[in-house]
């Protein structure tokens, strides 16, 4: 294998990236985007695929026209693809109890890269006719049906199956029965099959919640991928041709993104956090102890969902990131106009600052949502009855920011930010990382392509990842245990040419430009009761590879002050000082001292 053409067939754009192994090194030879052609008038995905491939081939000086993309094509060329065309993989999830089987099913669907359109349960407050109409109106690509532990109650899951049968949903593409993946009570399989025999294509896998205290998501996730490939994508216009061409299964795009995050986590042997801020939705990924978790905040985003960002938070929480005074109605009007004209871009500096303020809140809320869902199993309580188990709050939060060494940002507002410092500032304010964290963005929208490449050559993905993920900066944020001391930590920064010694005081936010050549050595000595990643009071040493980026020393404490906090005024004043003077984030830099 010498070259790999990786395709991400999105809802509106088909993104082609060409990778090649040259002199033992993997390189990106070209990148081209063309409109996706799955809808009218072309109604053939291959039209857009061939246009994008030809364009990327021209950049690399090789012929990637229609002949290269034929079955007898180029033996040195491997073709891979992921897809979210038509809005991605749309699923309805059905389970008996919302906090148990339905929640596990939702996790399985999200982890497989699906958009969960609705979660139907036996007691979700709706009447059967309303559920049936809902299934019908949502027009999902497939349905994940779960319910009951093995040997448990059967009736409820049969009721769910009967509602699916009554709705008789038809897939968007083709005229085949809708795929239903059954991952519920094993004892109910034959009954479910009987109910759905005439209206659905049933795929039975292991129960994803065989016992209350056990969750097995793998078989359901794999079945979703398989069905997506064979029954959904194969029916979309032109996809049969694409399926015949590719050298590995076509993955849902978020699933491919998640695969790359797992590779990254394995590579650095640390937990990883990632966010993809879209117009309608914001996806959060975390890899904790090697396990991938993905959540989709379906109503948080930068365009269609901008009004919902406003609705989901206090206006002051958005205004705190603006260097000018605004009232709530101004923010609301801005968000509403962005919703109805989603393709417009910020022009005036104030407009850009508003967009970035909304982005901070969208990411912060999505990450909070992620933390609500990525917890230990609910519904498990030793010695508790079912009532006690259900009344439990969330399980233990799994993401510990002190253990997260890398945060990856994707999506237009981060990937296309005019300056790296803008993306850095947004991600630090939104995630409030702790300890030493590297922040990068997928500026070329290549992460899904590298994700599908892991199917063929994980090592190539790892090498390319280091090239294509762009460093926007590092953040060193002490965690204070108890009352903060006057100086949180002293930091020695030593580059190849320059160096300095700094202190971090409570509330302070300092920015240092890193040297673009040579390694920068960092020695951070925290005060007693302050943790910078090594444990309270323990010195941390780290080497930062050469990058055109910034190091932020963030002493503002955690959590960052918000509308409910006392110290918000200081944060607002600090933000205004930073952004008013440096409207587009050319942060004031701490002076280097020659060494």
């Amino acid at each position, binding site marked *: 294998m010498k070259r790999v053409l990786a395709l991400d067939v999105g*809802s509106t754009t088909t993104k082609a990236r060409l990778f090649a192994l040259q002199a033992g090194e993997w390189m990106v030879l070209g990148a081209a985007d063309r409109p996706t052609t799955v809808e009218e008038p072309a109604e053939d995905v291959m039209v857009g695929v061939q246009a994008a491939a030809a364009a990327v081939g021209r950049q690399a000086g090789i012929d990637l026209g229609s002949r290269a993309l034929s079955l007898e094509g180029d033996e040195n060329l491997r073709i891979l693809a992921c897809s979210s065309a*038509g*809005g*991605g993989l749309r699923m309805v999830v059905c389970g008996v109890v919302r906090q148990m089987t339905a929640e596990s099913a939702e996790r399985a669907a999200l982890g497989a890269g699906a958009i969960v359109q609705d979660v139907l349960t036996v007691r979700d*407050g*709706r*009447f*059967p*006719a*309303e559920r*049936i*109409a809902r299934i*019908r*109106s949502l027009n999902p690509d497939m349905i994940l049906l779960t319910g009951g532990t093995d040997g448990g*109650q*059967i*009736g409820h899951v*049969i*009721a769910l199956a*009967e*509602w699916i049968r*009554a*709705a*008789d949903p038809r897939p968007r593409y083709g005229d085949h029965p809708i795929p239903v993946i059954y991952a519920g009570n094993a004892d109910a399989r034959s009954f479910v099959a009987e109910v759905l025999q005439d209206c659905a294509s049933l795929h039975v896998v292991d129960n994803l919640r065989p016992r209350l205290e056990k969750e097995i998501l793998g078989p359901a996730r794999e079945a979703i991928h398989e069905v997506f490939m064979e029954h959904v994508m194969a029916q979309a216009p032109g996809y049969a041709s694409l399926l015949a061409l590719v050298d590995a299964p076509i993955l849902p795009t978020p699933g491919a993104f998640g695969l790359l995050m797992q590779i990254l986590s394995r590579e650095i042997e640390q937990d990883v956090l990632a966010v993809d801020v879209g117009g*309608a939705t914001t996806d959060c990924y975390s890899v904790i102890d090697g396990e991938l978790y993905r959540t989709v905040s379906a*109503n948080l985003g930068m365009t*269609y*969902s901008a*009004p*919902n960002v*406003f*609705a*989901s938070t206090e206006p002051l929480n958005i205004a705190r990131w603006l260097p000018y005074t605004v009232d709530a*109605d101004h923010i*609301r*009007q801005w*968000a*509403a*106009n962005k*919703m*109805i*004209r*989603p*393709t*417009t*871009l*910020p*022009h*005036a*500096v104030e*407009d*850009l600052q508003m967009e970035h303020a909304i982005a901070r809140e969208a990411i912060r809320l999505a990450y909070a949502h992620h933390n609500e869902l990525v917890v230990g199993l609910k519904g498990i309580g030793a010695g508790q009855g079912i009532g006690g188990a259900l009344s439990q709050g969330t399980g233990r939060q799994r993401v510990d920011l002190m253990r997260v060494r890398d945060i990856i940002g994707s999506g237009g507002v981060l990937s*296309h*930010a*005019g*300056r790296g410092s*803008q993306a850095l500032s947004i991600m630090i304010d939104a995630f409030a990382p702790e300890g030493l964290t590297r922040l990068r963005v997928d500026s070329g929208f290549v992460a899904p392509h590298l994700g599908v490449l892991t199917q063929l050559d994980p090592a190539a993905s790892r090498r390319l990842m280091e090239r294509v993920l762009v460093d926007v900066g590092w953040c060193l944020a002490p965690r204070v245990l108890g009352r903060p001391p006057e100086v949180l930590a002293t930091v020695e920064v030593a580059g190849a040419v320059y160096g300095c010694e700094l202190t971090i005081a409570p509330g302070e936010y300092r920015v240092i430009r890193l040297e673009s050549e040579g390694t920068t050595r960092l020695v951070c000595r925290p005060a007693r009761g302050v943790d910078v990643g090594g444990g309270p009071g323990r010195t941390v040493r780290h080497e930062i590879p050469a990058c055109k980026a910034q190091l932020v020393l963030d002493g503002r404490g955690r959590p960052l002050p918000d509308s409910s906090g006392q110290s918000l005024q200081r944060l607002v004043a600090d933000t205004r000082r930073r952004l008013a003077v440096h*409207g*587009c*984030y050319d942060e004031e830099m701490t002076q280097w001292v020659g060494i």
Partner: protein
Amino acid sequence: MGGDMTLITRRRMLPAPGTVHVKPGDRVDHDTIIGEVRYSFRMPHFVNVARLLGERRENLTRDHFTVREGDEVRAGDTVARLERRWRFMGETREASAPVAGVVEKVLPGLGLLSIRSGEAPAEGLVSVPVASSLRCRPGEMVPHLRVGPDDTVDQGQLLAVREDGPETHVARSPHDGIVDAIDDTRGAVVLRRRDGRQVVRAFIPGRVQRVISGRGAVIETRATVIRGVFGAGGESVGTLSIVNSGILRPDHIAEVHRGSVIVARGRLGLQALQRAHEAGVHAVVGASARTADMVHLLGEELGRSVTDESLGLTVVLTGGFGDLEMDEDLWDVWSHLRGSVACVKGETHLRAGVIRPEVIVPGEGPGLGMALGLSELFIGARVRVLREPGFMRRGTVECLMSSADIGNGIRAPALRVRFDDGSALVLLQANVEVIP
């Protein structure tokens, strides 16, 4: 947004499989019933008889069951019996029905029995606790109601709205039904659920082009279609009335507008919309509205970028949010259509599978069609600005730039626009649209 005179088709689909009452070629009016769905559901209950009898399921036979398929049972009735006899003593174990209903399946090999519950949960009276949703006392509920006795309501429709300082509290209907009573002692609206029957009407007058078996029909008609950028309030039909003023005010709305569709040139004021609702106006179309006013009308933030609920009034905006006026060209189209019957759909889905609100005016018109679909930018093209600076101003493209830094770090394709007043601006190409 613009108007387009053409032969159009609209799919009218049932919410679930049902009966279609029309056939291809039928002429339909806007209120002709296309089809209907009836559905009632009984919950299945599986009784693990083997477990209840303490016997392995493979040892059970049909003789152990005391009921047969089709038998009616009450809760507690014996459904299976196991008798054991030894030399000096015996034991009888029984399994009973957990619910009343009809025995659907007897499955000795599996040790199971299924009973189809006798209760139909989808019917009857439902009390909606409106006062508690409004956070007011029961006696204070009535002035805030938006529905009255015998009104038909849809699921999600606003039943009441109460302003409380900066906060707005709302009560919505949990399902489709008819208002049976207003209970101001308990602070509730009592709904009578529909009998599971849902009908779909044609919405536009025309001809049935084809029938989708058991699911709906496609209606075709020749009409002028004007699309908006945002709408709410479901579907309405009425005669078009024109109000050529800046902001639409309450005094523009009179008794003669009952049942009509009002088109206003400027912004729709909140009080005017409220007055229109009270006066029985079916729909109001305007250039813009303030976001806060739409939030008040909808009873919630514009958070989901989807509006599909019934408000009792359909609202469509052709420009956006803020203080805007309609273009001259679009206003001319409306003026020509004055007095025609308009079918207004306020639904907005700003996501994958975008649905924009639209006004359909059926009938052969005086050549009002506008050439839409011209979206390529070129030097000399007339454009409208979609975002500040220059929001909603119109001008002519003087120069196209493949990439320009406009000062905030963003590099993107740009253009220079000469406005009608002689001034010029460099703008991002993404922030303009071509005027056909």
